[in-house]
């Protein structure tokens, strides 16, 4: 079947196309060049419409045990947002941590066609993939979490060479079906278990004697050397601590030019100036990002309202539990891998700290020059549920709207931000870079995020509207792998997305040491740890898309 999308205004940064009228042809799920003489089976007239590829959320917590803990902890959040079944969609519930099916529908209804879970614990990777396997329409993938696992810390204490660590990282990625590596509060989650309640970049884990700086260096090196496209995905030290802007600047400097992605950087950009000893470090951070081309970031914008924070960083979540609203929270240890903390949060515009957090996130968006190195996230659900993205896009694209909102927040916070003086407004092309082409490039997706021939036909069509929130809330059409899944912001058909992975090579002898370790310390045997392709594909829903490593000939 040949589908033709006629006359849309195309924004395809991957091909350098910035708002040109173009026809797009789709056959067998992929975009093709204009065929010589084939008959068009279905034509969509898109004259005057805005056409982009499907959006990609490169950091969203949609799979893994913490989601279920958050769901269990907050039944009231679900009671307030029940979702009924229809002939084509399943029932569920929404808001801060929606059910899997509703997650898929709501993402698709905003024009998103892929989401990547940034905190897949190796031990829980199977559950994370099964949960993501229940999310319809979206493509998905995961970054496997390392850096506080006892095995790596033992290797570092024993001064194992980089090659051995590379093998361990590659083996874990392959076994856990990951496309990237994430580190959360490097070594800090582990230090929490030895009764440390904070861990600075150069502070030693009291048991292993390893510092976060060393962990970051060795993991960033491993990721680069085994050829994974996605740079080491870093949730740094001291999340949420006033004054952590210095930690973040030191982290950037300490990585020594290796590729590194700093995630939800808003939570790591706080100074200690002013009457409340809490200030914005966004300008310093943005300057460092602009200068260091090896660094990419996503923002982790907060937006006001009820949400729930779910993180592997049990050290910081434990410290924040007194802010829980409603007043209930969970932190836990997860075997020898990491930890988990779930704390419900209500961000309030009349709270000085929350209001300034909001402004810091926006300052970061607006002061970082290169849209290819900054990504639009709320760290769903930690800063806000993903359903608030259209509102966030409007804040970025519409200065007068932004200033109107700014005028309503806590007055002291207004005085502490330069937001009002920043004139920048994001263009549609820049939004397309942040949410499509840039994200695909950052993750290393070879045939997504673009509209040139050869790409999969993940396409979103919007009606241009000066109110960007309305525009991005309700796409006219969304195609996933060439199938029309959304019309006028409502799901009209569903399908299953693929799971994106990389398969780096490793020396098989790596399993020797690991087998003893698994037998002695873990609840699972080594053989069961490894997820086979069949587990994802056997029910006929899922599929696996392997992406090339750097150095591969594509």
């Amino acid at each position, binding site marked *: 079947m040949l589908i033709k999308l006629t006359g849309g205004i195309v924004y395809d940064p991957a091909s350098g196309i910035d708002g040109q009228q173009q026809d797009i042809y789709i056959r067998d799920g992929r975009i093709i060049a204009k065929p010589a003489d084939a008959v068009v089976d279905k034509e969509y007239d898109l004259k005057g419409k805005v056409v982009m590829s499907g959006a990609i959320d490169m950091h969203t917590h949609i799979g893994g045990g913490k989601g279920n803990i958050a769901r*269990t*902890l*907050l*039944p*009231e959040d679900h*009671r307030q947002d029940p979702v009924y079944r229809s002939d084509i969609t399943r029932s569920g519930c929404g808001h801060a941590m929606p059910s899997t099916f509703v997650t898929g529908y709501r993402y698709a209804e905003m024009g998103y066609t892929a989401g990547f879970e940034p905190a897949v614990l190796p031990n829980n990777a199977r559950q994370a993939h099964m949960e993501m396997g229940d999310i319809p329409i979206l493509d998905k993938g995961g970054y496997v979490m390392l850096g506080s696992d006892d095995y790596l810390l033992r290797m570092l204490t024993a001064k194992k060479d980089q090659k051995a660590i590379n093998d361990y990282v590659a083996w874990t990625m392959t076994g856990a079906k990951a496309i990237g590596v994430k580190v959360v509060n490097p070594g800090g989650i582990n230090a929490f278990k030895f009764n440390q309640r904070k861990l600075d970049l150069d502070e030693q884990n009291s048991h292993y004697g390893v510092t976060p700086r060393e962990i970051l260096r060795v993991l960033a090196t491993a990721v680069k050397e085994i050829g994974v496209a996605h740079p080491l995905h870093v949730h740094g030290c001291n999340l949420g601590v006033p004054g952590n802007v210095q930690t973040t600047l030191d982290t950037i400097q300490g990585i020594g030019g290796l590729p590194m992605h700093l995630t939800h950087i808003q939570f790591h950009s706080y100074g200690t100036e002013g009457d409340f000893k809490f200030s914005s470090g966004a300008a310093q951070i943005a300057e460092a990002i602009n200068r260091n081309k090896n660094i990419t970031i996503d923002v982790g914008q907060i937006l006001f309202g009820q949400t729930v924070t779910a993180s592997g960083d049990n050290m910081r979540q434990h410290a924040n539990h007194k802010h829980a609203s*409603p*007043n*209930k929270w969970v932190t836990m240890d997860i075997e020898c891998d990491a930890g988990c903390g779930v704390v419900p949060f209500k961000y309030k515009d009349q709270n000085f700290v929350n209001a300034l957090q909001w402004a810091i996130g926006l300052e970061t968006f607006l002061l970082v020059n290169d849209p290819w190195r900054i990504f639009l996230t709320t760290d769903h659900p930690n800063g806000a549920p993903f359903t608030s993205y259209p509102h966030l896009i409007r804040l970025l694209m519409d200065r007068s709207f932004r200033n109107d909102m700014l005028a309503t927040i806590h007055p002291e916070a207004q005085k502490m931000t330069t937001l009002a003086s920043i004139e920048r407004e994001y263009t549609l092309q820049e939004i397309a870079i942040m949410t499509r082409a840039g994200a695909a490039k950052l993750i290393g997706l070879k045939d997504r995020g673009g509209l040139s021939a050869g790409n999969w036909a993940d396409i979103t069509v919007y009606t241009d509207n000066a109110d960007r929130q309305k525009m991005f809330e309700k796409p006219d059409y969304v195609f996933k792998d060439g199938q029309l899944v959304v019309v006028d912001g409502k799901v009209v058909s569903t399908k299953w997305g693929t799971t994106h992975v990389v398969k780096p090579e490793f020396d098989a002898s790596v399993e020797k040491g690991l087998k003893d370790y698994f037998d002695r310390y873990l609840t699972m045997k080594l053989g069961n740890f490894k997820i086979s392709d069949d587990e994802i594909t056997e029910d006929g829903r899922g599929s696996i898309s392997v992406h090339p490593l750097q150095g591969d000939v594509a």
Partner: protein
Amino acid sequence: MSALTFTLKSKPAQRVDMSPLVCQHLSGLSIAEISALTLQSGKLKLRVDELFTLTGSDTQDIVINNSADNLDFIGQDLDGGSITVNGDAGAYLAFGLKSGEIKVSGNAGLYAACEMKKGYLEIAGNAGDFLGAALPGNKMGMKGGTILVKGNVGERAGDHMRRGNILIEGNAGDYCGSRMTAGTIAVMGQTGRYLGYAMRRGTLLLWNQPKLSASFNDCGAHTLAFLPILFGSFKTLNSRFADASIAFNRVQRYAGDMSEMGRGEVLVKL
């Protein structure tokens, strides 16, 4: 005007959500309109007149005759008026009751008076588990008003209770008054294990010596002047609680739960 009466034709096969049939939703509606309302029952939506025979017209005075234990959510969010249930009530009787009066001649199921705000609930028979409690996961149970149960109650009566009175003429099950923040629960009969488990504040008033956890401290015998005033407030009730001969002012006082903030009290008649 005579009471608006719903007489159940026969016990339905599936549970029925009765929440539409409360006084404030029905006021101003004709009998024909009320008959045409639908109630969720299992997978089906049934018309009111498929389930009930309707008589009378006073929507502020509702009677449910021949009631069964699978009629759930009777009197949900009732805000003024009265509902009289002849027979049993299902789960979530008087859920979120705001004001007004609900009386049941038989037994009530789980979660009766769940998150009740104010008003009066009387159950002539027994009540199930989680009487006056919070919904699972919620932090606040009953916030005000009075519940009178003439029979026995199940486990977890007053779980997360914040304010109001629960008066039980019979026995209470295990975990009576668990996680209470405040309020009063009076039990004339026996109480089960783990009385006042993790209670923070509030009062458990007992006629019989309970089996207390180690996390309750004996504070000795006291004569409390507030007790006659409390019993005085029960004078108008259709209950043994109104009987002057059951009142007392001399109690043994235990404080707990010390594994929580420990400002709750268990008062036992001496």
